[in-house]
């Protein structure tokens, strides 16, 4: 079949919340169904919460960002019809995003290799020209020989691991700087 050049990416700009989470952006007449708001209700598994902020190269929190989540259920099975898809917008004053979901199960990939439980994350905001793919693993639920983490130099691996605390898991996304998050070309 004909090869077509892919459409170029452009920044989401500062108002991605209007388009993707209009109710969160304060639009009075939202949609009858808000997509990405029911991860925990849609998936079988143990409830968890992941909190964090997107931090820019000046050390400031990004206030206009959106984190999208894609994950399997607690047994490691991916679903259809929007189940397993989540959206966590940056809070307009604090920048905090909150992911209320279930602990994903380990995923068996095509070679029979086991991937440690993880959330696939996709991040957009003003100033991000191409949406950023990354992952969140869990500090108390990660294997030393995970096939993806093993590819990454140990000093940067920690940027992908949500740390368990008394208030759930914590993971900041650093766009630049000493702790720049590992992003993927996938």
């Amino acid at each position, binding site marked *: *079949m*004909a*090869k*077509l*050049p*892919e*459409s*170029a*990416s*452009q*920044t*989401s*700009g500062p*108002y*991605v*919340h*209007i*388009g993707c989470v209009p109710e969160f952006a*304060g639009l009075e*007449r939202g*949609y*009858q*169904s808000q*997509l990405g708001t029911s991860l925990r209700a849609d998936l079988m598994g143990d409830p968890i919460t992941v909190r964090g902020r997107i931090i*820019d*190269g*000046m050390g400031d929190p990004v206030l206009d960002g959106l984190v999208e989540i*894609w994950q399997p259920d607690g047994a490691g*099975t*991916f*679903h*259809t*019809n*929007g189940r397993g*898809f989540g959206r966590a917008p940056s809070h*307009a004053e604090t920048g905090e995003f909150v992911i209320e979901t279930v602990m994903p199960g380990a*995923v068996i*990939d*095509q070679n029979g290799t086991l*991937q440690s439980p993880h959330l*696939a994350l*996709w991040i957009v905001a*003003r*100033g*991000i*020209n191409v*949406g*950023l*793919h990354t992952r969140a693993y869990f500090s108390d639920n990660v294997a030393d020989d995970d096939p*993806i983490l093993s*590819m990454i130099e140990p000093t940067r691996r920690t940027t992908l691991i949500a740390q368990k605390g008394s208030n759930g898991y914590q993971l900041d996304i650093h*766009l*630049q700087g000493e702790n*720049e*998050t*590992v*992003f*993927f*070309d*996938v």
Partner: protein
Amino acid sequence: MSKLTDIAPRDFSLHPPRIAPDYRSSLSRGPIHKPIGFATTMTEATGPTFGHDVLGPNDHDLLINHAVDGGSAIGPRIMVHGVLSDGDGRPVPNALIEVWQANAGGRYRHKKDAYLAPLDPNFGGCGRVITGEDGSYSFRTVQPGAYPWPNGGNDWRPAHIHFSVFGMAFSQRLITQMYFEGDPHIALCPIAQSIPDAAAIDRLTARLDMEATVPMDIRAFRFDIVLRGRGATLFENQLEGT
């Protein structure tokens, strides 16, 4: 069982660089490190899909979907339509497309947009559609206005509509912008010009489509979208519900 396929590598020569110095916001928000590639796994080869049942009756009609008391948004009435396909030329059916935009005066309905142009009480500025079996989509709206923005100079965005597009795989996820044929601001815009390939900018530029234009009613603009193609069959999976 459904067959999962590999996703073709992204062609970075068709996309803006992570840091495009003329677009100031990217200076502190574009990652410095190159992204790390790895062979597609189940996680990226799958992705969220949505049924037509998630849509409300007016989600595709921005002329009226936020209007009060039977009103309609102010501005040039337009219909935007096209086909979503992948890099192998296959139409992508049942894919969600979300759009957002400024009103005809160039003002967003957002508490952080303080531009002089007034809000339109009958215009919200967001809508969504799901592609048909042939990958086609269409929605109605008003043509958005150009607006000024802080980038260190006298910068004005060309009229544009923001598009969020889902494919079959999470790795195909795309956000982009649609411009309008003939707009002199495209050549002046640091965001549009962050794309290093002139033909790629041109492909984000919608064309006036007189054939689909409805006489005495609404002008049509044509905008086709292409997601990354697929590679070889990756593996059979146990995706539930397929």
